[in-house]
Every structure is written in C-alpha cells, then in structure tokens.
C-alpha cells in the first residue's frame, strides 16, 4: 500500500520543487521595474474601466456546473459497476440500464426545456 504511493509522493515533491523553485529563481534573477501602467489591469491599452468585483455571471454557468455534478456522480457509479457487472450477468446490465434510463428522463426533459442551449 505505502509502497504503491511512495513513488507518487516523491513525484509530487519533485514536481512541486520544480515549479516553486522556478518561480523563486526567476523572482531572484528577474528585473523588477514597476510602473502604474504595468500594475493596472490589462484592457487592451485603454484605461481600466470595468468594476469586475461586482459583476455577475450568467446563470447558465451555474447550470453547467450543476449538470456536471449530476453526471459526474452518474459516471462514478459506473466504475464499481464496470468492475463487478460480469458476476451479475444480464441482471447487472438491467440494473444499470434502469439507472441510466431514469437519468435519461432528466436528460430528455432538459433537452426539451432548452437547458442545453447556449444562446
């Protein structure tokens, strides 16, 4: 168990050291000549106008995230099933078929309501 994850841990440490080290080295050797224009938000050369902190995003992004969550859970259910369904034979397939069919209702409803439209 720990032998399996030890190399992963080492890889994580090496990758972190590499990434963080690069940033540290570059901050040591790189020049630093700030001026007000550099430090302001980039808006294609115009004076920064947008008050970004109070802006809100369209609700469809929320809908995408919600759908992602639901289908992610569905996908996660597929994995243990994928490993064991052989031992359940056609009954196992029927179980997952019903599961997918029930979610299919949600999918069709959403399709019909235009929940998948992006305009």
């Amino acid at each position, binding site marked *: 168990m720990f032998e399996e994850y030890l190399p992963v841990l080492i890889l994580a440490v090496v990758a972190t050291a590499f990434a963080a080290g690069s940033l540290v080295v570059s901050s040591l050797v790189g020049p630093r000549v700030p001026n007000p224009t550099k430090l302001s938000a980039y808006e294609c050369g115009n004076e920064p106008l947008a008050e970004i902190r109070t802006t809100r995003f369209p609700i469809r992004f929320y809908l995408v995230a919600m759908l992602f969550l639901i289908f992610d859970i569905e996908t996660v259910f597929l994995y243990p099933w994928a490993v064991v369904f052989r031992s359940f034979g056609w009954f196992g397939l029927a179980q997952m078929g019903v599961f997918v069919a029930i979610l299919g209702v949600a999918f069709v409803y*959403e399709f019909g309501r235009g929940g998948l439209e992006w305009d």
Partner: protein
Amino acid sequence: MAEAVSFWVFAVLALGSALAVVAMRNIVHAALMLVLNLLAIAGLYLTLQATFISIVQVLVYAGAIMVLFLFVVMLLGVDRDDTLTTAPRLTAVAVAGAALLAVALLAAFVGPYTSPASVCGADTEVAASSDAVRCIGLDEVYGEDGQGGVVLLGEQLFGRYTFPFELAALLLTVATIGAVILARRRDLDPEDLDPEDLDGSEPPPGAAGLGSTSSDALDLDPGTAAADTELVLDTAADDERED
C-alpha cells in the same frame, strides 16, 4: 508507522483547514480551504486503504461540488469586500449544535471500541465470545479484493442495495429538473436583460451578466417585465410543490 504518520498529517490538515474555512474573510479563500479539507479527508480514506472511496472523494467533492460552489460565487458577483456579521446569539447556537454533533459522532463511532466487549488490544477470552466488538483493520476488509474496495462496494451496491441505487438515480433526476426549472426560464435569464456591462455602470437590480450575446435583449419591453414578475412568483410556487 507510515500509517500513523499519514493519519496525523492528514488529520491535522483536515482540522486546520476546516477551522480556516470558518475563519477566512474572503469567500473564495474559504472555498479553497474547503477543497484542502476535502483532499485531506481523501488522504484519510487512503490511510484506511479505501483507495476507491478516496479517489471518488477527490473526483466528486473536490472536483465537482467545489467547482459548483465557485460558479455560484461567480453567479452572485465576485464581491470580495463582503464582511460577514452574525448575531452573537446565532453563533452560540451554532457552537452548541456543533458540539452536540461532535459528541454524538464520537459516541457512535468510538463508543463501541471503548466498551468492555471490544477486542481492540484485549485478551483472547473476550475475543472468543460471540458478542465481542471486533476491531478489524480496513486493511483486511479492503485489502482482499486488490482494487481498493471497489469490488466489495460494487458487490454490495448491485447485489444487496439495488433499490437504493435506483433511488439515487431518481434523486439525481429530481436535482436536474430542479436546476433546470430554477435556472432555465428563458424570459427570466438575467443576461437577456443586460446588453452591456463593461462600461462600469451599476447593473440593474436582479439582472446582470458579463458579456451578453443575446439577440433578443432588445425584445424586452415593460410588458414582458411585468410578465417576468409573475413568472418569478410562479417559479417559487412550483418549487414549493416540488418539495
């Protein structure tokens, strides 16, 4: 040894990040601390040899639910100067509730192992009796399928708990339909109401959106606006019926 080290590392990380979630003033920072907390919990599952549950924790909680949280933050506006003020009485109630929950959880999970019938480190005499509370390491349970518990989980889920499994599909369906009803009222879409917002002006109340492409933004007239209000009420009523 390695198990003890990883337990303490992840336990301290989980508790520390949980406290940080509450203490952070900035909502996105708090959300990030929650991600760290969820990852630490995944680490604890890993320590328990439950690799499948651990990776699902990362995929679903850290990967999906927290992304949803962050999108909701975006939806509400990235206002980072929000300072939260709570009534002191509410804080007291919350602390008391949390403490009660902690005691109940401790009693439920740790209790059996402190009883005289527990065989954790006990002599063989107690262990031999039939009502002994056994202390099985998860190593024994999950180790045997060689797949981090996924075979055992699958066999239980699709063998014994078929009905709850199908109910989960129903729950997810209800959640999807609810999300669509809440979010997808075409005529209510906030972005339709706000053709330009990069000019720094205050967005109209209840309606804003970064960048709008909608061609029917111009269709909006006071008449439809009135209809919108009715629809809001409608939606609320629908939701109550849904519940």
